[in-house]
Structure formats: structure tokens, C-alpha cells
């Protein structure tokens, strides 16, 4: 049999490398991505064309006209002033109520899923109660809320009430100054207001909020009875006060959300009856009005209900009640019952598979339009994105059966069709997973979306079980529940479902920067290259170290100091969040909080501690070079190295060459890999694992990159791996340094597989050859590669399949390449939304050629 199918005749040529999709033959390589988007309906095509992207880069918003609104900050402040004297948890509920009853409701043309979180779809809200400094920063920016004077007044009002003021008191100002720099450690969340949450969507969809209100009311009645019991026992009786307040706050919050949803219903009906002229859209608006009348008050009955309920819940938990990053849920599992009702049984909101695909496309566009009023640091470190939105699909069900279903496929197909950078997606890879779905996963990757990123199903499930044993109330994940996990942000798995999900950033997120820590370790804890100040404890001058082990020990001390600072800052934040930033709505929809009358920030049933080392490989490669050239071979002294680094290698080119040529991570090299494995397991993970966090469990590393590999690179001087000062660091938690993996993609996997102990997750970027992936052999090759990846017990992998030609063309004419998407780290971005230097770092990542540069040419010649 001729294996290349039929040779294609084209412009009098045979194309001997047939594309999987022959219609691509007319498309020049450097434009490919502009031809891959295929919105499945005219509506989603229009919605995408008018999408109000809120991408930020280098701290600035990319599109014109995007700015901060004042409405939310005005309303929360007004409520805070008015509620003085009431229990804090009630004040929080009243704040939410004030926002939801007075805020502007937005309805846009063509939308089916509706709802926005600011007074205009070009705006995003601010959160002065989370970080007054972030508001101050907005006030001096081009995106300042109007009037600025009012915004400044509001920021000032919150200073004494802020988490920052409350929490800072318990830290040495020297430590705080070091944290604020974001060079060895990320700034504390009590200063930046950054947060993440995993809302238990299941209860909203399955129960509806009226049922939650009823539960809270019953709990209050019961509590009152308990309090009135004779004889009075204060040791238990007084605990009810706090619980009653919490349940009351839940009732206020749920009622406010129902009323807010119904305000949307009214708006739709008013527009249908007074403004809309198209009869078809008119009846659609009335259908949306009907949905918003019923949900989220009542349980969802069909797929349209479910999408709308999910979106309302998202807006409250991530953007209105407080700012929180993320989009964590197991979407295919969550929506499957409603898919069955609408698409298979057609008992409610009957629709076809294609209609379900359109719903997913519309949801992706809502996320793309979402604006996050986050602080400058976080606008810098996710270049080209509006925020981190990551959801999860695939994997195994509780009973071990394949979790892929037709909803999974609809999600993947819509994602491939609509081609937006957000939300990013995780696919849980299990050998049992059906091939049909894996082909769709492959198609998204092949089309260069950069996602789904792929996680090892079993490793994730085992982690849920591991953490469960530390549960403070002995109620961590059961072996069955352990299967219900989704990535909380880019990388780390956490439980999803009706209870035990992660509610605040104390559990996970936040960064530590091993490369910068290495730099200061060589200088007795002093940072000469960015801040010109002492950044850590005095652990000795490197020129006095007699052995490599002394350097190792000094590094470990510096790292431990920074780790203790960052986790302490997170847990102290959480302590105060539980007292001043309660989340009554999120509490109301969590079965645990509802049962126990406890706030979502306060209650922890399933520990899931993690923290992100970013720039680990620069530090690790540096240690390898030092050990080899200074301690093993004694080719150079530490004094010489320090001089060379201070000179940014100028005049030390021979040395730089030797340090550059020292063995590097990602080449299956025994010398380098042994040291680096120990670095990951003994220091990076080993030191973290000794910490006990708020939830009573250990903290484990989730090595990744986000945009910080560039930001931290720019704050890190020259390093002994041969890198110049300011250059980018490694772009993934465990990815080889850009261009230093010389032995191909299998050697990378082999190196990475050596790190197994004390890790939670590690991000691995791979760039694969585009023509090979787009050929008819693409899936089979990738599939064989993935099977080996799975057998090597590696936690994660994600792919960039983008041609250098197209990236270079996009640098020249950005306006022509709006649909070129690249994987930055744990998220994808439109290539043109990234600063030029960041683009260059992505081009520099080694393209794993699968054996031949040859194919690139062939494709060009098509």
C-alpha cells in the first residue's frame, strides 16, 4: 500500500508529504495560524471579531480603551462605611449585596451567556480592600478609574482596614522589603491582593441557591435550639455565635446573587421588548430572561442553564466578591449530566452536538473578554494574557472508568475552532482514555494552541490521597473523591466538587526564584545586581567555601529563609482573610462550610500546599558548572568566577565558554542530571516539604515559568551557567534552558523522569516540528511519544507547535497575525501581545526536530 495516501498534484507538482488537512496546501507557512480559526457559527465569528480583549503585557494593557471602573470600589467602600459595628462576616455579605443591587448590569449584542463585572464591558473593577497599593498604582497609570481623586480617597480610606496593615505588623520590615522586590521571592498576597479560588460549582448547578438558603436557615434554627439547651455550657454554646453569623451572611449573599441574576432577566426582557428589532434575537433574549429568572436560584435543568449558572458563579467568586485568578473545574464532568439532558435525551433545552460546541465557543469568548483588576506585578508576569484561566478535562472517573465523554469532545472541538488563548486547558492523560478524544487533544496541540497541557492522571490522583492524610479535621479526600481533581491554576492539581476545594491562595500559588537565590548565595546573601541590598541571611562568602557541599549548604539556608518568609506570609494573609475578607457566597456553596458554619477562607479540610520555584534550571545548571570546573577539575577558582560574574563575563570570554559548555540539564547526561536531581529533591522539594502550612500539610514545589522567567531574568545578574546579566531564565519548572537541550525530545524526557521525590508538579515545555505534526503521521508519532512519557511517570508536558517562519513574520507585521498563539509557560498568549524580547525567547526554544530539519523546507515549498 502506498503509505502517503495519494501523492497530491498541486501546481504541477506532487506534494509527497501530504497534510492531514489537504486544504492547507495553499497557505504559506508564515500565515498558517491565520487560517486555522473556524468559528462554528456566524454568531461566534461575530463575537470573536468584536471581543474586547483585556490582555496585558509588561504591566500595560495591549488594546486601547481598556481601563479601570470605579463602580465596584465605590460600592464596597460605601457599604463598609455603613456597616461599621456589625460582625465582620455580615459586613462582607452586605458589601456584596450593595454591589450586586446597585451595580450596572451589562448585556451585549449576540451574547447567549450573559453577565459582566464592571459598569462597562471595556472596564475592569478594582479591589481597594485587597490592596490599596495596587489601586495607587492604577491611579498613576493610563488606566486610572475616573474620577481619580475619588479613587485616591478610596485607596486612602482602606489603608487602616487593609490586610497589609493588619498582617505587616507580624513581619520584620527588612523581610517585607525583600519580599516586595519580587527578585528572590514573590511579594506577599496581603500586599498585592492576588488570590485564587476553586468555587464548588456543583452545588449551584445541582441544588440552586434557594436550597442553599434553606439549608442555612435550618442550620440557624438548629443552632438556636442548641444554644438554648439546658444546662447552659459555654464551652460549646458560644461557638454557635460565630456560626450563626456565618450562616446569616450566606443567606444575605445568596439572596443578593439571586436578585442580581434576576436583574439580568429584567434587562433581557426590557431590551427584547423595547430595543431589539430582530424577531429571532428577541425570542432568544426572552429565553435568556427565562434562564436568569430561574437560575442560579433553582437547580439547572439543561445545558444552557448550566453554562449560565457557571458563569454567574464564576463572576461572583472570581471578580465581584473578590478578585481571584483561575478557572478551575472539571468541565466535562460538571456539564455531562446537562449535556445528557439537552443533547442526548433532549428533555430540556434540546440541542444538537453542534449547538453544544457553540455554547463552549461562547463561553471561551466570555473568558477572553474578562478583565482582571490585578496589580502591576501580575500584569507583568502573565505577558499577553488577561489572567490565568485553566480548566481540566479527561482522566478517570471515581470508579476508574474513562472520564472522557461527548462533552469532552465538544469542549475540545470548540477550542480548536474558536482559537482563543483563554481559557487554557488541562487534559488528564490516562492509558484508558479513549483515542477519539486524544485525537482532538492532538488537533488542538497540532494547531499551535499550546494547550491542552497534559497531566499524568494517576500522579494527580495519588497526590490527592497523599495530602488527605494531613487533614486537620480528618476529612480529606476519600480514595474515590481523589479522582475528582482539576488543576487549580497552571499546574497544581486540587480537588473539585461540592466540598474540600481550595478557597484561597494560602494553599497554593506564589513564587520563589532559585536563580536569584543562587546569585545572592555566592555573595553572602547580598544582591549587587538589582536592589543593592542584603536580600537574605549572611551565609558566607563563596570564595571561602572549601567544598561544593559548603556551597550546597549555604544555598539551602538561603532557600529555606525565603521559603519560610513566603509561606508565613501566605498563612498570615489567610489568618486575616478569615477574619476580615470572608467570602460568604463561596462559603454558601461549599458543603463543608455550610455544614460547619465556617468561612471558606478559614475552613480547610483537604490540605494541598504548594509553591512555585521559577528559574530552577538556571540555578541547577550553575551549580553543575561550579562543581565541575571549580571543585572537581579545579580549572578555575571561585574568586575568578566571582570576578567574571561582576564583569558580566567581559574580559572573561574563555571562562564563559567553559561554563557555558559544562553539562546542562535536558541531555540525559549522568553528571548533570545527578546533581540536578538532588537539587530538585533535596533542596527545592526537600526544604519545602519540611514546612507545615495553614492546612496542616507539607508544601511541595510546582515548578513553572509563567512570564516570571523573563521578569526574574531581568532582575538577576550573570550566572555561572554562562548566562549574561538580565537574560531570561529557563521557561518552565523543569524544562531545559532555551537551546541547551541538544539531544532531542527523548533525552529531555529521560532527564526529567529522574526527578521523582518531593515534587508536586513540574512544568515541561516542548517545541515540536510543525510540518511533522501537521503531516498524516503526526498523531501516531505524538501518540507513541506520549505513551513513553506516561511510562516514564512524568507529571506534565505541554507543546509549542509553531514555526519560526511564522513567528518572525508576526514580528514584522503584528497586525496580520492576531491568531498566532504561543505557549508562554502555564498559559498561552497571542504572539503579537508579547514584548519583542519575550517573543525572541520563545523563538529561541529548541525546536525538537524529530530527526530532520528537512521538513520545514518541504512545507515552505508547498
Amino acid at each position, binding site marked *: *500500500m*502506498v*503509505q*502517503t495516501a*495519494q*501523492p497530491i*498534484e498541486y501546481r*504541477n*507538482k*506532487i506534494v*509527497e*508529504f501530504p497534510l492531514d488537512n489537504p486544504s492547507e496546501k495553499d497557505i504559506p507557512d508564515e500565515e498558517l495560524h491565520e487560517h486555522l480559526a473556524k468559528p462554528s457559527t456566524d454568531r461566534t465569528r461575530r463575537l470573536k471579531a468584536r471581543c474586547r480583549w483585556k490582555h496585558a503585557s509588561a504591566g500595560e494593557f495591549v488594546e486601547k480603551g481598556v481601563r479601570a471602573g470605579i463602580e465596584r470600589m465605590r460600592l464596597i467602600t460605601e457599604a463598609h462605611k455603613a456597616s461599621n459595628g456589625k460582625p465582620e462576616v455580615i459586613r462582607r455579605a452586605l458589601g456584596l449585596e450593595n454591589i450586586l443591587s446597585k451595580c450596572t448590569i451589562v448585556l451585549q449584542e449576540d451574547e447567549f451567556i450573559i453577565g459582566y463585572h464592571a459598569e462597562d464591558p471595556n472596564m475592569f473593577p478594582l479591589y481597594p480592600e485587597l490592596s490599596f497599593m495596587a489601586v495607587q498604582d492604577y491611579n498613576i497609570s493610563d488606566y486610572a478609574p475616573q474620577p481619580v481623586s475619588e479613587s485616591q480617597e478610596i485607596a486612602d480610606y482602606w489603608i487602616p482596614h487593609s490586610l497589609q496593615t493588619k498582617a505587616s505588623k507580624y513581619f520584620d520590615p527588612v523581610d517585607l522589603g525583600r519580599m516586595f522586590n519580587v527578585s528572590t521571592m514573590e511579594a506577599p498576597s496581603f500586599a498585592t491582593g492576588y488570590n485564587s479560588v476553586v468555587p464548588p460549582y456543583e452545588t449551584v448547578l445541582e441544588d440552586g441557591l434557594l436550597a442553599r438558603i434553606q439549608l442555612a436557615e435550618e442550620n440557624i434554627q438548629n443552632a438556636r435550639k442548641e444554644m438554648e439547651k439546658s444546662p447552659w455550657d459555654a464551652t460549646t454554646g458560644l461557638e454557635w455565635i460565630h456560626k450563626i453569623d456565618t450562616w446569616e451572611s450566606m443567606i444575605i449573599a445568596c439572596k443578593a446573587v439571586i436578585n442580581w441574576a434576576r436583574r439580568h432577566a429584567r434587562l433581557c426582557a426590557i431590551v427584547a421588548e423595547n430595543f431589539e428589532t430582530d424577531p429571532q434575537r428577541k425570542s432568544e433574549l426572552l429565553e435568556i430572561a427565562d434562564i436568569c429568572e430561574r437560575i442560579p436560584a433553582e437547580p439547572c435543568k439543561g445545558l444552557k442553564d448550566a453554562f449560565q449558572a457557571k458563569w454567574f458563579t464564576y463572576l461572583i467568586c472570581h471578580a465581584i466578591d473578590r478578585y481571584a485568578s483561575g478557572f478551575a473545574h472539571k468541565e466535562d464532568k460538571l456539564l455531562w449530566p446537562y449535556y445528557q439532558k439537552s443533547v442526548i435525551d433532549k428533555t430540556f433545552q434540546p440541542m444538537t452536538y453542534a449547538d453544544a460546541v457553540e455554547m463552549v465557543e461562547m463561553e471561551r469568548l466570555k473568558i477572553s473578554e474578562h478583565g482582571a483588576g490585578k496589580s502591576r506585578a501580575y500584569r507583568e508576569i502573565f505577558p499577553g494574557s488577561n489572567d490565568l484561566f485553566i480548566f481540566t478535562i479527561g482522566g478517570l472517573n471515581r470508579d476508574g472508568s474513562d472520564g472522557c465523554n461527548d462533552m469532552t469532545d465538544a469542549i475540545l472541538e470548540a477550542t480548536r475552532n474558536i482559537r482563543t488563548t483563554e481559557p487554557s486547558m488541562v487534559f488528564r492523560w490516562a492509558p484508558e482514555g479513549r483515542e477519539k478524544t486524544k485525537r482532538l487533544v492532538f488537533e488542538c496541540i497540532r494547531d499551535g494552541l499550546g494547550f491542552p497541557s497534559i497531566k499524568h492522571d494517576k500522579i494527580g490522583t495519588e497526590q490527592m490521597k497523599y495530602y488527605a492524610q494531613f487533614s486537620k479535621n480528618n476529612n480529606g479526600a476519600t480514595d474515590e473523591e481523589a479522582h475528582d481533581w482539576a488543576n487549580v491554576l497552571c499546574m497544581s492539581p486540587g480537588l473539585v466538587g461540592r466540598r474540600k476545594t481550595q478557597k484561597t491562595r494560602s494553599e497554593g500559588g506564589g513564587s520563589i526564584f532559585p536563580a536569584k537565590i543562587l546569585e545572592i548565595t555566592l555573595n553572602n546573601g547580598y544582591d549587587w545586581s538589582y536592589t543593592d541590598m542584603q536580600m537574605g541571611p549572611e551565609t558566607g562568602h563563596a570564595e571561602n567555601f572549601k567544598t561544593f557541599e559548603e556551597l550546597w549548604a549555604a544555598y539551602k539556608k538561603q532557600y529555606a529563609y525565603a521559603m519560610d518568609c513566603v509561606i508565613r506570609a501566605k498563612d498570615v494573609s489567610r489568618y486575616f482573610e478569615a477574619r476580615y475578607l470572608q467570602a460568604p457566597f463561596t462559603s454558601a456553596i461549599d458543603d463543608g462550610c455550610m455544614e460547619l458554619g465556617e468561612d471558606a477562607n478559614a475552613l480547610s479540610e483537604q490540605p494541598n500546599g504548594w509553591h512555585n520555584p521559577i528559574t530552577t534550571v538556571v540555578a541547577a545548571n550553575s551549580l553543575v558548572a561550579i562543581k565541575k570546573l571549580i571543585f572537581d577539575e579545579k580549572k578555575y577558582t571561585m574568586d575568578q568566577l566571582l570576578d567574571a560574574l561582576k564583569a558580566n563575563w567581559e574580559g572573561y*570570554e*574563555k571562562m*564563559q*565558554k567553559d561554563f557555558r559548555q559544562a553539562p546542562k540539564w535536558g541531555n*540525559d547526561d549522568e553528571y548533570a542530571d545527578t546533581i540536578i536531581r538532588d537539587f530538585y529533591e533535596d533542596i527545592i522539594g526537600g526544604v519545602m516539604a519540611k514546612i507545615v502550612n495553614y492546612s496542616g500539610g507539607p508544601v511541595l514545589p510546582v515548578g513553572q515559568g509563567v512570564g516570571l522567567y523573563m521578569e526574574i531574568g531581568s532582575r538577576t545578574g550573570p550566572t555561572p551557567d554562562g548566562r549574561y546579566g538580565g537574560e531570561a531564565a529557563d521557561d518552565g519548572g523543569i524544562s531545559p534552558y532555551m537551546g541547551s537541550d541538544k*539531544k*532531542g*525530545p*527523548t*533525552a529531555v524526557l*529521560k532527564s526529567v523522569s529522574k526527578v521523582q521525590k518531593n515534587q508536586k508538579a513540574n512544568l515541561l515545555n516542548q517545541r515540536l516540528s510543525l510540518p*511533522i505534526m501537521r*503531516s498524516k*503521521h503526526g498523531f*501516531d*508519532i505524538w*501518540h*507513541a*511519544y506520549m*505513551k*513513553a512519557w506516561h*511510562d*516514564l511517570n512524568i507529571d506534565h508536558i505541554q507543546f509549542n507547535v509553531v514555526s519560526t517562519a511564522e513567528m518572525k513574520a508576526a514580528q514584522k507585521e503584528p497586525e496580520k497575525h492576531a491568531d498566532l498563539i504561543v505557549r508562554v509557560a502555564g498559559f498561552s498568549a497571542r504572539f503579537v501581545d508579547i514584548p519583542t524580547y519575550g517573543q525572541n525567547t520563545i523563538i529561541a526554544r529548541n525546536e*525538537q526536530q*524529530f*530527526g*530532520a*530539519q*528537512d521538513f520545514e*523546507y*518541504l512545507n515552505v*515549498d508547498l
Partner: protein
Amino acid sequence: MVMKTPLITEIQRFSLQDGPGIRSTIFIKGCPLHCPWCHNPETQDAQPEFYYYPDKCTRCGKCVEVCQSGATSLSIGPNKQPELNIDRKKCVRCMQCVEACLYGARTVVGKSFSIAEIVQEVLSDRLFYGHSGGGVTISGGEPLMYPEFTLNLARALKEEGLDVAIETSCFQKWARIAPLVQTTDLFIVDIKSFDPQQHKKVIGKPLEPILDNIQHLIAIGANVRIHFPIIPDFNDLSSYFEQCLSFIDRFQHQLNGVDILRYHVYGEKKYDLLGRGDTYTYKNVKPCISNELLMFAKALKRFNHVNITFDGIVGIKPNK
């Protein structure tokens, strides 16, 4: 007798075009033939060479300082900029200049590996071979220029249970080829021409022993894949294609498969890097698809049970 040990230009992991599945390919340096279109010029000369990258060169002169033979020198060019000159004929291949270069403007081509080192390297990817039906390919250059080494290497690989392919021109005494049959899962052989005179004239060696050896291999039941390279101004002719067809016709029930490899230009840059740009007669020859080739491709359809590929990706055949 001391076994002659070749230099290796590369052990390429995750190779997809040198036999079925995901493979590791060992490129041996040195070849008795000199095909003017060769896209791996670095594998022709059995001696070590170096690549020179002018873009990375700063003209600092470190290489000039260490050059023993005067092959490398600096001069002032017409625009008063320093120019670096390399006279490869004078070069004694001491490689001191590569050592001295601080900017990565020179790299060595051709390194020594023991058989044990090669086996260790390729064993690292055993898992990938298993999932894809791949293995190891000994290629070149010409592995049969080092028959003993190749035999020992193939045996060592076989002892590890790996699938072994040998990519060869078959230009060698049959007696040196025969022992390989037992340890080789697949022979991948080229037939560049069916015209003995043309073969001798252009490639420099006779065709007859090559064709004899290939037919021998087939006759004794070895697993053989034929490569037909399509070279402009050489064999891109209906006469050649007709002979290809009749060859396939004759052996269609015995061949493992046939790969049609169209001429490509990726070797061009390597000639420049080796300082042999001037000698490359195929410079600026652009591949195109002639009507003859088109007819050939269509004619191939009639062999509907022969595994035929274009450009040599045999594909993935996962082990059961």
C-alpha cells in the same frame, strides 16, 4: 588485526526517517562514493573536520594564534574590516582552533566513540522504540567502510534485543556483507542509477557490485528496503523510473518497502560550513517535480501491496 574504528558525526535520537518507528541513528564518518548531490557532506571524509560559522566569528584572531599549519589567517578586507581566511588544504586537523574559539564559531565534526558508549547512548531510548516499533539505524557515510566495527556494533545492539537497521550503499565485498545478515533486521539500500557508465562517471564507483549485493541480500531472504533518490540532472528521467518500476515489479513480494526520496537542498549550508561551498555542484539547484516523476508516482499505485513512502517516514508500528 586491529579493528578500524570510525569517527561518528552524530548519534541522532528520535529519528523518524531511517526505518520504522522512533529510532536512534548513528552516522558514521567516511564514504567511498562521492555523490555530487550528497546532503550529508560531513560524512564523506573519514578524517575529522570542523564547521566554521562566520556569523558567530568576531575575527578576534585566537584561532590564528594557535594554528600550526598556517591554514587560518587574518587580513584586512577591502572595506578595512578584518577578514578571516581558512585554507582547508593546509589544515592538519589538529582542532586547536576549535578549542581556542570563544564564541562557538568553530565546532568539531567527527568524534570517537567505543561500541560500549554507543550502545549505552542508544539504550536510553529503549522505551520509545518499544512504543513505536523503532530501533537503531547504523548509517553514514558508509558503515560498510568499517565492516568489522559495524558487525560488532550490530551484534552488541542485537544482544540488547534492539531492532537494528543498516543504511548502506552496499558498495563492499559480499563476504563483508554476508555476516551482517544474521544481526540485521533491515537493510536500507540506495539505487541511484541503473546505468553502470553513468554511475561510474558521476559517483566514481562501479554499479555492478552494488546491484549484485542488493540482489544477493534479497535472494537470501534478508529484509530490504530500497531508497530511490530522485536527483535533478542525474536520474530524474523516464528511463530511470522505468527501471525502478521493473525492479519493484521483479522483487515486489520480497521487499520490505520502497522509499522515494526527492532531492533537497538542506546539505547546501553544510558545504559552506565545511569550506567546500565551491565544490558543491548542486548549489542553487532547486528541487522540482517533473512530469516524469509525476508519472512515476502514479505508476507506483499499481503496487498496492508494497509499502511505499515519499521521504521515508515509514510510520509508527507500536509493538503489540
